[in-house]
């Protein structure tokens, strides 16, 4: 039997010594994933600084506590402690000033790295990010849109201009130490300068409902050439696909979080075997699942709320005619 707990216990003891990363291409350290952006180097320094200050004070306090609990323990019959002063200004001032000075350093270095991450470079490569329950959309300057993956060129400043269609989401790439909430009704911005090619993960870090924990995307950092090729290819996503295939692709990128193709219910109704059937709505009316109904369900889902389901679906107004045709073809292909 494999007991992961034991490994962890072992690593608790061993890894702690390699606290400061010497080789950033390695797996990451005990405390951090790899440092894959310029920001990471800056903010990790602050972390380790606070870390050692904390370690020192914790050790000091615990040692003093244990020592005194033993040294001055109660002895039978001797219930008077030894005479000792009740307060001391020297001590009070010392233990106020020292932490104060230490926190100034924390504050200053933290402020610097924050300002670094908050000051978006003016002419960076810009990616428009749109979040919604529970998927991400990345739009590149050439119009290409991707959903399941995010590609970035290495050693380049990249700005993310973000908005949300429904609730607050959080944009976090741990390897970059970059995080910013994506707030509906406004823009938020952040940026990164990736320094290392490789694969990382983007998480959603602001709780956004049922599938919050599945709102992850793979981030690929690659050299400029491969990146350019990749972006160019993304600009025409339907190239070489049939309508059904194209529909399936869109589904897998944007609808899969709520609609299954196998009859299981996730958030919304499954699409399997629904084509041509009669759909009943919350308000008692009904309609046949046909092209018009699907189109309406996409652009104004709450106008015909399927019985037994919450009004959870966001409207998709910016799907092109091709895309809607693809989706209809795909739903059709799932039979009735």
């Amino acid at each position, binding site marked *: 039997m494999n007991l992961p707990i034991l490994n962890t216990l072992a690593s608790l003891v061993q890894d702690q010594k390699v606290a400061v990363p010497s080789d950033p291409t390695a797996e990451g350290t005990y405390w951090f994933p790899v440092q894959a952006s310029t920001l990471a180097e800056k903010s990790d320094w602050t972390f380790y600084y606070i870390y050692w200050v904390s370690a020192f004070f914790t050790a000091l306090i615990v040692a003093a506590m244990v020592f005194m609990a033993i040294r001055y323990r109660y002895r039978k019959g001797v219930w008077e402690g030894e005479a000792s002063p009740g307060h001391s200004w020297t001590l009070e001032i010392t233990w106020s000033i020292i932490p104060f000075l230490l926190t100034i350093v924390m504050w200053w270095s933290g402020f610097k790295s924050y300002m670094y991450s908050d000051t978006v470079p003016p002419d960076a490569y810009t990616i428009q990010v749109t979040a919604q329950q529970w998927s991400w959309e990345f739009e590149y300057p050439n119009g290409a849109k991707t959903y399941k993956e995010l590609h970035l060129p290495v050693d380049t400043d990249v700005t993310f201009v973000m*908005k949300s*269609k429904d609730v607050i989401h959080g944009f976090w790439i741990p390897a970059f130490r970059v995080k910013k909430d994506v707030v*509906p*009704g*406004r*823009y*938020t911005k952040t940026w990164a300068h990736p320094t290392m090619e490789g694969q990382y993960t983007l998480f959603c870090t602001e709780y956004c409902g049922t599938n919050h924990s599945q709102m992850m995307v793979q981030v690929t950092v690659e050299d400029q050439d491969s990146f350019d090729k990749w972006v160019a290819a993304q600009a025409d996503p339907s190239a070489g696909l049939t309508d059904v295939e194209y529909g399936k692709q869109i589904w897998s990128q944007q609808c899969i979080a709520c609609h299954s193709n196998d009859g299981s219910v996730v958030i919304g109704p499954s699409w399997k075997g629904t084509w041509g059937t009669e759909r009943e709505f919350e308000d008692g009316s009904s309609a046949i699942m046909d092209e018009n109904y699907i189109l309406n369900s996409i652009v104004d889902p709450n106008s015909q709320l399927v019985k037994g389901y919450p009004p959870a679906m966001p409207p998709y*107004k910016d799907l092109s005619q091709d895309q809607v045709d693809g989706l209809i073809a795909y739903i059709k292909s799932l039979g009735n």
Partner: protein
Amino acid sequence: MHHSEEKPGYDLGHPASMKMLWSIFGALLVLTVLTVAVAQFNLGAIDFSIAMIIATVKATLVAVYFMHLNHDKGVNRLLFIGAILFAGLFLAIALGDVSEYHHEIEQHRIDNPDYMKKVG
């Protein structure tokens, strides 16, 4: 009913004089008329300030005389003023922050006219 009539030292209140109460009442009425009257003219930006100054004067009269803060214990005075300062602090910081990022909301409104649900 009046158990302790005979006992000295039990007088806790400072009954306000009718003259004072009447004059405060009068002042409040005059100020109300004044603020409505001023509001009939469009004085631009200072309009709001005038209305608020008059309201503050009225509120102060109520607090000091009707609520007899003029006779009250220091703590009670401190509390009331503290509460107002405190609410002010909350407003100042929250609103200060909002005005820093508000352009991001405006920009979003311009770019995404359909984002907001239609009402009205």
